[in-house]
């Protein structure tokens, strides 16, 4: 029996994506954990003695709240929110 033809976009997106990691099995060759080298954090290249000064507590979790709405008229910036992952299609 002939295989059923797939949608062209299925081939491009799904099969094309799967092909990118073909042969790279998850779990084979476990990743080695690395960290910033300091109990207090700091950037990876930051010397240990400077790490304390570089730590900024930004809280935890995701940025679930958008910044306060407002428009900086001088710079003509506009704050945006309302996005959860999907691209809004109109």
């Amino acid at each position, binding site marked *: 029996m002939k295989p059923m033809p*797939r*949608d062209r*976009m*299925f081939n*491009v*997106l*799904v099969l*094309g*994506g*799967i092909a*990118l*990691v073909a042969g*790279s*099995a*998850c*779990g084979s060759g476990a*990743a080695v954990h690395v960290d910033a080298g300091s109990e207090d954090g700091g950037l990876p290249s930051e010397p240990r003695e400077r790490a304390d000064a570089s730590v900024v507590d930004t809280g935890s*979790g*995701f*940025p*679930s*709240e*958008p*910044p306060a709405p407002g*428009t900086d008229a001088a*710079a*003509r*910036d*506009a*704050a*945006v*929110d*309302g*996005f*959860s*992952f*999907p*691209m*809004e*299609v*109109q």
Partner: protein
Amino acid sequence: MTAPSAESGRHIPWESFDAGALPAAGRKIVGDTWLERMKQEHLAVGAFSLLAQELAQDGCDETVLSLVTRAANDEVRHTEVCRRMAVALLGKDAVPARVRGLPKVPVHAGASREARVLLHVVEMCCLSETLTGVYFTEMLARARQPTSRAVLESLLQDEIDHGRVGWAYLSWRAQGKRLDGLAEALPAMLDRTAGRALRSAERSPEDDGLMESYGWLARTSAMAALRRALRDVIVPGFETLGVDLSAARDAIDTFLG
């Protein structure tokens, strides 16, 4: 030395853009979608940056990490391309010079870090970016105006990679049998992506082809493209990778009408 442009990449012939054939009402409808897309592309910069952090923390194939970090940069360029399209259609005064803000990201309370990164990649890439890839492909098939076509080709090239990286990561996780939590989360994720896009498309007007020639989809073609993406790409993609769709079946059937 010339400063790098946020819009570098495929050449777009902005100088030949002519919206003169489009009545004012049509320019407003098409221009508003590009303005909205500009905002969404900017928010996607934050979303991909978050994914890059999560993937770096949890570990993944290097191809995936490379594509996701690059995607954040792609979205900066997309924001500028969409801004220029909006300006071309609506005028400079109607479009902000730049936007700022971060996305609201599904928290998936109670999920482990390992599960959360999978859910985020699937929602952002396998669902949202895959829908966008099919949607833009349909838009390109209907676009006739040369600048609009160049814009769509420029965006689509990246959107395909943004979808692919999701399927790559899902495939990698499936090989390791690390899909815990996905089946249960899928109905809500489908609603936030396919459901939201379909509800939005349902509110779009119809068109005789004129607006579509400038890079836009009317109600019927938009809904058909989104349903095709779900039916012929996303669902078979999940099935191919052994994702349990039992909890999502009702939502899928509803969206496919």
